């Protein structure tokens, strides 16, 4: 596939410039100016104030934990699913997308109904004379909400690459005397790295920037960086500060991107 294909990227490049780059430029403009339009770094350095730093730290912590849990849950599942019959591919994909046909806000609200003090889960536990769980309005509920909402984004890319691994490669590995563990570590895992990267990206970032989950399941008692930015835009209507903090948030996102790029190179090497 040579130079002939290059012009094919034109529509997408134009689109990206118009609807990604220019709007982003506007955020930078707002983030680096004050209300009078003069240049300032105040909106960026505002991240160092106690309340913003705390919110950012908590967001990073919760989103990392959620991403890890998602990965640990999704990988075995994706392996199980990828070993199923081939003609069920689309079915499996849809099973994971299906919950999203119920609106995101409604699904998250449903967790409230499940987790509340006198909610469904506690009613069942009471019936069985088991101790109640009380995690609603705590960081645990937020982690649960994140894992719940973003798990499919981890499963699907993993499933996508795992189901693509050639059975013969695995058989060859076994024939050559490799054990299951060895085959997994040396063959399956490296081959699935592109999927892992996609999965981590698709879970970590929305988890890091969410404000809806923390509002609905954290009782608004827990302030994440997403909440701060949201409030600057919608409640305080200080778009300059909100933009400045968004720029800070983007730094972490860029770090994630660099990490992806580094690992991705290895991934390609393994595929060859």
């Amino acid at each position, binding site marked *: 596939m040579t130079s002939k294909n290059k012009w094919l990227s034109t529509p997408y490049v134009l689109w990206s410039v118009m609807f990604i780059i220019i709007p982003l430029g506007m955020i930078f403009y707002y983030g680096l100016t004050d209300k009078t339009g003069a240049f300032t770094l105040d909106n960026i350095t505002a991240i160092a104030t106690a309340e913003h730093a705390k919110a950012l730290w908590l967001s990073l912590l919760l989103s990392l934990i959620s991403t890890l849990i998602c990965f640990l849950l999704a990988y075995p599942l994706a392996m199980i699913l990828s070993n199923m019959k081939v*003609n069920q591919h689309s079915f499996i994909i849809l099973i994971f997308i299906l919950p999203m046909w119920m609106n995101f806000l409604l699904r998250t609200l449903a967790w409230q109904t499940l987790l509340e003090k006198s909610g469904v889960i506690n009613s069942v536990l009471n019936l069985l004379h088991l101790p109640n769980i009380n995690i609603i309005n705590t960081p645990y509920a937020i982690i649960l909400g994140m894992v719940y909402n973003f798990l499919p984004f981890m499963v699907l890319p993993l499933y996508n690459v795992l189901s693509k691994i050639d059975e013969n490669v695995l058989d060859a590995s076994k024939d050559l005397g490799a054990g299951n563990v060895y085959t997994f570590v040396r063959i399956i895992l490296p081959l699935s790295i592109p999927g892992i990267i996609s999965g981590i990206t698709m879970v970590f970032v929305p988890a890091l920037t969410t404000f809806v989950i923390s509002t609905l399941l954290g009782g608004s008692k827990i302030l994440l960086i997403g909440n701060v930015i949201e409030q600057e835009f919608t409640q305080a209507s200080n778009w300059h500060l909100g933009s400045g903090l968004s720029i800070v948030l983007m730094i972490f996102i860029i770090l994630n991107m660099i990490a992806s790029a580094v690992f991705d190179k290895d991934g390609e090497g393994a595929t060859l």
Partner: protein
Amino acid sequence: MKSTAKNIYTALIFLFLYAPIATLMVLSFNASKTRSKWGGFTFKWYSSLFRNDEILEALGNTLLIAFVSALVATVIGTIACVAMNSMKRRSRTVLMGITNIPMLNAEIVTGISLMLLFISMGLRFGLGTILLSHITFNIPYVILSIMPRMKQLNPSTYEAALDLGASHTTAFFKVVFPDLLPGILSGFLMAFTMSLDDFIITHFTKGAGIDTLSTKIYTEVKKGIKPEMYALSTLIFVTVLILLLLVNMAPAKKFRDVSERRKS
């Protein structure tokens, strides 16, 4: 025994994914208007749903936006993937980086930045602005679904097709496209669902008098969700589920029919 453990594990994950959905379904039959109180079994929300023009219009908007934006995003995204695969490493990395932006950025920032753009362009907020925004955030999902497959492609099959006299287009559609199809399909479905599910970006780029289900629900969260909304979600969900089962059963059955006929 090992497969039992696998089945239990899979079942537990599905329980986790589907418990809230079951909850919403149960709520759609709750005679009490309040989420936290069970007032007996009723079908009344289902009948009042079809008399509720606002909800039906929001549903129409939601599906229209999801379908159009997913379709456009899939076309642009697939073409972009093919183009990117033949790019030099550096320009590909740059373009992939740009692709990641709407996905990686906080949705609210994407929403606000698009709102600022549309204001500066003097566009009237409405269906058009929502569509533009949805296409923008849908493309990365398409690209990210296709790219892993693209990377696993064996370039020599494509070259072999060319050597055997196929044109670029033919070679693409006969050799590359079938391999990409699962990625394209899952990309489309993902884009469709993401659009269906989006609230934040729509919220910032919608105009007066146009609502999607998400923005409608969000206004209702304030005042308590109308039970009709649970009923509608249940209907959508069950419809999709049934379609899914039918589509999946049909070929298997056909296959069985064929093999039975052969036997006789």
